[in-house]
């Protein structure tokens, strides 16, 4: 009896391992396939021979990419956008979250401000009126169109409010008794103890700005001004123009698939570089931000 039970649980354990490994591989293998395609000859790609390992290993697409000036122009626009956009997001997140983390006795107007920003988070006028505002302000075709409409990251503000609330009041009190000004308390007391939370929201901003393709599509009239994701989107997924199955088949077998895969792989490298940090901080970010009593 005992042996039978052990055997049963052994099988159960095996099944669990198989399912978990299968689910994990389902996330990994398609990405490895992309890398393999980027390193294969275009003939091998066109005839669908490439699986998890490159076929006719070659780096020609990577060499070609080095000379692709539009790709690097877009890459640079994305880098600038990430730096500028994240800096702006951090500025607004900190300046808004600090006063709003104080009690209503200390800052009675906070109640109104909180209602305003939650309303702003939940209700949007939609893309059409927003587009008109951006174009009325003459921001179209400038990098500001990519960073200003989302300058106040409301979700991150709320996350940071919750974190600041957790900072012991005694720290604030001690600094106050020493005669420190509000701004000094924020920069010298609150920010240094909030580094994990600040890292979390900075990473959220970086990922958002790096991955967003839609503002580029909406606000940039010239392809030369596209950030990287918009550029790739236009290259690879321009299937909205396609109206019949035949064309879709052609697109799937086009020989520049290897080149597109190379662009995708290279565009993903910056995210992989920050991925260890992302993993370290985003779990705490979810826990602070998603559920709160």
């Amino acid at each position: 009896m005992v042996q039978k039970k052990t055997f049963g649980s052994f099988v159960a354990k095996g099944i669990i391992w198989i399912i978990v490994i299968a689910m994990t591989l389902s996330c990994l293998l398609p990405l490895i396939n992309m890398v393999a395609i980027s390193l294969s000859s275009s003939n091998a790609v066109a005839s669908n021979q490439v699986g998890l390992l490159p076929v006719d290993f070659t780096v020609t697409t990577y060499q070609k990419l080095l000379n692709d000036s539009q790709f690097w122009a877009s890459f640079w626009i994305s880098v600038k956008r990430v730096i500028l956009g994240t800096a702006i997001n951090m500025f607004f997140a900190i300046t808004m979250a600090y006063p709003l983390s104080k009690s209503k006795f200390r800052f009675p107007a906070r109640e109104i401000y909180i209602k305003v920003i939650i309303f702003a988070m939940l209700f949007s006028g939609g893309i059409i009126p927003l587009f008109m505002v951006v174009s009325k302000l003459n921001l179209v075709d400038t990098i500001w169109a990519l960073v200003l409409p989302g300058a106040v990251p409301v979700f991150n503000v709320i996350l940071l409010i919750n974190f600041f609330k957790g900072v012991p009041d005694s720290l604030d009190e001690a600094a106050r008794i020493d005669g420190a000004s509000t701004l000094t308390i924020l920069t010298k007391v609150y920010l240094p103890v909030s580094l994990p939370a600040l890292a979390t929201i900075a990473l959220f901003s970086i990922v958002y700005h790096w991955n967003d393709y839609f503002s580029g599509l909406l606000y940039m009239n010239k392809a030369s001004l596209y950030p990287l994701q918009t550029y790739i989107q236009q290259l690879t997924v321009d299937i909205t123009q396609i109206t019949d199955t035949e064309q879709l088949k052609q697109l799937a077998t086009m020989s520049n698939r290897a080149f597109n895969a190379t662009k995708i792989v290279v565009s993903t490298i910056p995210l992989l570089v920050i991925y260890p940090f992302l993993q370290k901080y985003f779990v705490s970010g979810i826990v602070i931000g998603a559920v709160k009593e």
Partner: protein
Amino acid sequence: MAKPRTKQHKPYVGNKKERTTFHLMLLPGMIMLAIFVFVPLIGSVMAFQDYVPARGIFGSKWVGLENFEIIFSFPDSVQVFWNTLIISFGKLIMNAIIPVLFSILLNEIGGKFFKRTFQTIVYLPHFLSWVVLATVVTNMFSLEGPINAMLGVFGIDAVQFLADNQWFRTVIIGTDVWKEFGYNSVIYLAALLAIDPGLYEAASIDGASRFKQIIYITLPALMPTVVLMAALNLGNILNAGFDQVFNLYNPIVYETGDIIDTYVYRIGMVEGQYSIGAAVGLFKSVISFVLILSANSLAKKTTGSSIF
């Protein structure tokens, strides 16, 4: 939300100088919200106009609810509304079941190293954009791609998944679950850690098998979190995933795959029917707003937790 932490001390009431500083700190952010959220909100009155760009908001003719009547008389927009609901509900249900299943199974695996390696890998797709993943998905589901190759082994004819109205929604739901299940499982893994180990010990002394322990201890313990997440996602039911659908669909599958957001984009931005597009957008915003508020208070009532 603003209840003082401790009631025994008299709360510090601050001073006027500090409050002025607080207002000044909030000012720039409020100006940005005013420009990029509240002005567009006022601008959405164009939903009640026959908006002509040359005349602007103030010069265009007011038409009352005519745009809304036009929308509801289009068979297209009714279909779009249904597509949105079907895709959203599919995602809502599968995005609850699969992450719970995955977190329970992962929890059964011993060995920190493997656990952490698996987690590192399954979180990855969440951080990649739909632009990148659309290429990956198109690749996987293409006529000569790996999925069809696997089906071929079982003698099933190849399917043009992304250009087939029978399959498109399933692919959309499935690939969304694939992208997000790792990330969604984070919250359940955290909930699993909070279960009192004493419960399992007592159960195993009573002779309950591991499977029974999962059914009678783990699942009930996860239920409040599942309900909370589902309630909150219910508020987002009209967001069926613009980025994903936009990057994967094509005119062949508009019939089953076109959702409210992609429809607004095409009608408003591509075809230039600003008023109709804005009307659909406003309609969606209002319903979403009501849904999110009700979902939030529902979550607060049933589980004691909420977003705000």
